[in-house]
């Protein structure tokens, strides 16, 4: 599996560390339903058979976090973006 890092180019997946699902947003701990919201955020997953968004860390390359859209049935990678471009300021 090759991951096309926007900074380094296409590299073997061996160079990366996988962190997991990248669709969740950390809930507001001050919100009234924070307990329930954190349960969902920490434990529940869509776990799709098809397109999946995941965090990958390019540890043996540019050492940046990437957000990768990958098909879990075929392992085809549809899009790779730098995580910092995704983070809301």
């Amino acid at each position, binding site marked *: *599996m090759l991951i096309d890092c926007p900074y380094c180019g296409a590299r073997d*997946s*061996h160079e990366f560390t996988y962190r*997991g699902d990248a669709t969740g947003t950390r809930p507001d701990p001050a919100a009234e339903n924070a307990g329930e919201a954190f349960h969902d955020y920490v434990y*529940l997953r*869509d*776990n799709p058979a098809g397109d999946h968004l995941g965090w990958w860390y390019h540890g043996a390359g540019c050492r940046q976090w990437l957000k990768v859209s990958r098909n879990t049935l075929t*392992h085809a990678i549809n899009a790779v973006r730098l995580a910092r471009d995704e983070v809301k300021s």
Partner: protein
Amino acid sequence: MLPHMRYSVFKVLRDGLTSNRHLQPAWRDAVPKPHYDIVIVGGGGHGMATAYYLAKVHGLTNIAVVEKGWIGGGNAGRNTTIIRSNYLLAANEPFYEWSMKLWEGLEQELNYNVMVSQSGIINLIHSDAQRDAYVRRGNAMILNGAGAKLLSREDVREHLPFLDFDNGRFPIKGGLQQPRAGTARHDAVVWGYARAASALGVDIIQNCEVVDFLFQDGRIAGVKTTRGDIKADKTALAVAGNTSRLTSKLGFRLPIESYVLQAFISEGLKPFIHGAFTFGAGHFYCSQSDKGELVFGGDIDGYNSYAQRGNLPVVEDVFEGGAALIPFLPRLRYLRQWAGICDMSMDGSPIMCVGPVPGLYLNAAWNYGGFKATPASGWCFAHTIARDEAHPLNKNFRIDRFRTGHLIDEKGVGAQPNLH
């Protein structure tokens, strides 16, 4: 229904002398009926064992097991066949020990040779800290009647003389042994339960994929399948790595992610390994099949996948682990490699419960270790379905434990399924 032919030495002799002309199918390949009391989705080990114990122990026989492919074609027929009850936590160990007891009598119970071989398992120790952890685990095993033995380095040498005891980085310092552990013939377990369940009246329906659910009065009332609708009072899921796909039809999410686990088989060698053993410094476990092949595996492929085939980085990793332990491993030829889809949960432990939707029963999250659980999973899930409440042995496998904080995390790695 087929007459329930008993297997015996005399039958083998008679069939041999008559050129096997009188062999009969071991179980009925059924056509779906419009309604059952209970529909079990998934014809793996767990689904089939559940059907058998529902019929045998609870007297419920109007049951269908629906399987999208062929029975035993999922993880039940893809695993590395190790059975053991060497867990630490009180929520797990009594359940796995009950499974071990059922394995010990399974062939007599089913009148079927599932090739249970109690040749033992040894978890190798490479450091003082690891010995402390294994002493603690061994004590938990002894308290639960599973039995355990702490082995010195010389004891290990007697069992496994070919290991690299003086490896520069990970010398072997000892081991924790469960002498009652071992291996069983994985797909024969499915066939044995299928034959016994079928003889009690259970319908086994293959090539029948569940694609959605039927509803009535706010309850699940059966399944929509590629072979038509099947109504049922109770619908039970035992689909391992595909659980989230089905529950997504019900609009809820699970504390589960699906990952690939690979297995590897070497060429046949003379028998030299008795029982299974595991590396303590990397992820590698190994046994030798009755045909002489080394059967081994290691880590799951580290990212979500439903592809049912593995990738090369883990192949490399498993072989590196193996070579660090068995110096001649790189000189062997390798015949086969395959993979299955594991339902990895957020604390590494199973889920078996009533609900969470009325009419539904859930059996999932077996991670990469549900083969050994097959008999007890069937036993407890049958109880859960028949009585509408958990059996004492699966009462901790609740789905709401993630909400209440009663996690069962053997490894203590947290909500990171690819690390369990």
